[in-house]
């Protein structure tokens, strides 16, 4: 097979579109890690809930998936805040082992609750299945819209973190919970809001990919791994790093699908993870990992 510049261009653009989505979902994981030092193993299953919510809004109420997205985000914010307040808050100050195991347990419970409630039938949201052709490149409409919306939502999240009082409080807590507490920030409340926000981002991811791929209870797990890979690439706890990591992962996946096969693209991403951990464990932009 010869690779034309045309194909390469297609791969680069698809990679960036996919990468924007990865960046948005991973930003949620990165926020939780930054503020609570907790790696949320349930991040992917929470994304799966967002996808199912979109599916039921579309098939039950006939709601356009993109109009449903803000609603899904609000609901997932609530779910996240509830999970944090009732469960995760109890292990935030415990050794890392406890929080990893706890979120792992939550992940298993969520996936199997979904199996019981929704069965493992494969579902889909048939919306915008066509493609746009621009200058010889073909783009699936749903992927372009997902990429663009992901960029917009991620930009919104950064504006919120950078400009608002609440966003600044979140960043302050992530720098030092003790100092933040002394400065009069309600750290427990910030943690709850951060978890909710992170779940809203995961839910948005679920809503966007619901239109692109098959929806079933086990669709989420791989997203936990991908999001983690993104924050390792960019540097754990380094919020802009998630952007770079996301785009990089998107490009690597698309390129390896083109050069090898789609089946092996996960293995290639895994080799990338191991290499980054070997050579530059603090991530490409540097993080606060130890």
């Amino acid at each position: 097979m010869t690779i034309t510049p045309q194909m390469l261009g297609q791969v680069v653009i698809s990679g960036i579109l996919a990468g924007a989505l990865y960046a948005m979902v991973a930003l949620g994981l990165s926020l939780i890690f930054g503020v609570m030092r907790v790696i949320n193993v349930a991040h992917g299953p929470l994304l799966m809930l967002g996808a199912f919510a979109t599916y039921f809004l579309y098939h039950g109420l006939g709601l356009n998936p993109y109009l449903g997205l803000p609603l899904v985000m609000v609901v997932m914010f609530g779910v996240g805040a509830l999970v944090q307040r009732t469960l995760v808050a109890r292990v935030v100050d415990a050794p890392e082992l406890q929080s990893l195991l706890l979120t792992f347990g939550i992940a298993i419970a969520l996936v199997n609750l979904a199996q019981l409630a929704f069965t493992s039938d494969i579902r889909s949201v048939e919306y915008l299945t066509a493609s746009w052709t621009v200058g010889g490149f073909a783009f699936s409409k749903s992927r372009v819209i997902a990429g663009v919306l992901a960029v917009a939502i991620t930009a919104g999240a950064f504006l919120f973190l950078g400009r608002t009082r609440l966003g600044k409080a979140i960043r302050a807590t992530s720098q030092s919970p003790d100092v933040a507490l002394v400065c009069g920030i309600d750290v427990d409340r910030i943690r709850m809001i951060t978890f909710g926000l992170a779940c809203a981002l995961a839910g948005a991811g679920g809503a966007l990919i619901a239109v692109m791929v098959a929806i079933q209870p086990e669709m989420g797990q791989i997203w936990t791994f991908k999001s983690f890979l993104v924050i390792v690439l960019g540097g754990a706890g380094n919020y802009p790093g998630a952007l770079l990591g996301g785009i990089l992962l998107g490009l690597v996946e698309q390129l390896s699908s083109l050069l090898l096969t789609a089946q092996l693209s996960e293995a290639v991403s895994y080799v990338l993870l191991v290499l980054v951990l070997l050579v530059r464990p603090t991530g490409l932009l540097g993080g606060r990992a130890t």
Partner: protein
Amino acid sequence: MRRVVLPALAVVLAALAVYPTVASGYGVRAMLQLFMWVALAGSWNLISGLTGYVSFGHIAFFGAGAYATALAIARWHWPWPVAALAGGVAACLLALVIGYPCLRLKGPYFAISMLGLNEVLRALVSYFEGLTGGGSGLSLPTLEATIPIYYAMGAVAVAVTALAYAIITSRFGLRLMTIREDEVAAEAMGIDTARHKLAAFLLSAAGPGIVGGLFARDQGFIEPLSTFALVMTITMIVMVLFGGKGTVWGPVLGAVVLFVSQELVWARFPYVHQLLFGAIIVAVVLLMPRGVLGVLQQRYRLPRTI
């Protein structure tokens, strides 16, 4: 204490040794599986219970051992006991490759890397069809060896438990537990943490590798989905957490209780069963982080080596 425990242990082992001569085929198979779970749970405990580094993909070593053994038997015609040991070696090599980059770092890198490892191995095994038979699986020549495999599996379960005892009562074990409690302090005391973690990890991979090999020989057929099953990692973790992580007998207790209840009740409700596993993990972490044995140790002031 010792005077009661040692004879009791000898009686149990002797009973298990004569069990195949009196038991039904089903009984032997069930006991063989119980041995497998004791070995798997005990192995997970060596890395995660002792050093606090959670492995979310420990079944990857089981799968690697199963495929290495199956290939050695089917393609190179090795005798199965040698092939199963080769499975253990293969699992250790894999642990070395993954552990070296991931264990040098603190934090969750190791946990999530292990979560990914299992998925990636499954994808690789499915992809390289020429060698592994891909998704349609790999068949072994037929061989009636349930009873020898029963003894081999039992030997691995005993070896893993004895290893846990030897480690927990040794300076090496104390160093591992120091890493678990405070890695920075451990380093300040002069413990080479990276090497200790890697050593514990290699030891914890050997058991699942051999057990995987025995499983492959016993089943006579393996395929990627059931060999690299995430639910098996979950089961191991639940057994250790329930019984008491970081103890010698906790994984054994957890394996016995959960395996028996799984055989009797839950096997009929697969999703409820896994949902329950998730709930048990959450409940144990929040309410009883030391597990059943840890609670008993504390309440009745039992020695740490129980």
